[in-house]
């Protein structure tokens, strides 16, 4: 996953109107990692060893889009914990909130063929 993103940065550098800052890259990488972790944790039974998912990173002139697809169980929006209070020192349940905060768009779709698709969008910063 990290290697796939490293490859995507080369395309980002060619297409982005201004080179995104390292903070912009960190945010996108963080969001991608959180969604991957969410799939690994929730889409597959704990006993299963293989937890395959597909990741495509699409680079457009104005944004980068990551698409995750897996064939695990459907994600129930109700499974998402309420945003925990940082003062309570939460040890889990932060992943989707982190991803959402790092992105411009995050959406989930259950396809009729039984696949889960997560779509992550982050727009390039406006060129100076």
């Amino acid at each position, binding site marked *: 996953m990290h290697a796939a993103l490293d490859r995507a940065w080369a395309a980002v550098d060619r297409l982005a109107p201004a080179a995104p800052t390292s903070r912009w890259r960190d945010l996108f*990488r*963080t969001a991608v*990692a959180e969604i*991957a972790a969410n799939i690994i944790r929730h889409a597959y039974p704990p006993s299963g060893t293989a937890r395959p998912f597909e990741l495509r990173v699409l680079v457009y002139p104005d944004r980068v889009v990551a698409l995750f697809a897996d064939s695990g169980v459907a994600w129930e929006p109700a499974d998402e914990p309420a945003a925990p209070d940082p003062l309570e020192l*939460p*040890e889990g349940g*932060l992943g989707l909130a*982190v991803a959402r905060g790092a992105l411009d768009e995050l959406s989930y779709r259950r396809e009729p063929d039984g696949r889960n698709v997560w779509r992550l969008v982050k727009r390039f910063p406006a060129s100076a």
Partner: protein
Amino acid sequence: MEMRVEAARGGAAIVRLDGRLDLVTAGEAKQRMVETVEGGQKRLVVDMGSVDFVDSSGLGAIIGVLKAARQAGGDLRIACPTGQLRSILELTMLDRVLRPYETVEEALTGYE
């Protein structure tokens, strides 16, 4: 993920992590740091300078160790945050409760 523990002055211990602290490594890292606390080193400084990526599982591990240390009458401080660590601390608003120190030296200052 590599982990080394060094004794520091004043009874604090410096935990140096290297690699990624994420879904894959968080459980073991937490367990080893909690064992350090249970072994009597209740005040930890975690040097994050060589950790190139932290996800929410990794932060959860740090929070778990922080709780264990406080329960034992100690504490945990993090030092040398990378830009990515600062970003995820802000996104989770955990920067309010886990404010990173710029250097290990600063984290050790007044840590009795």
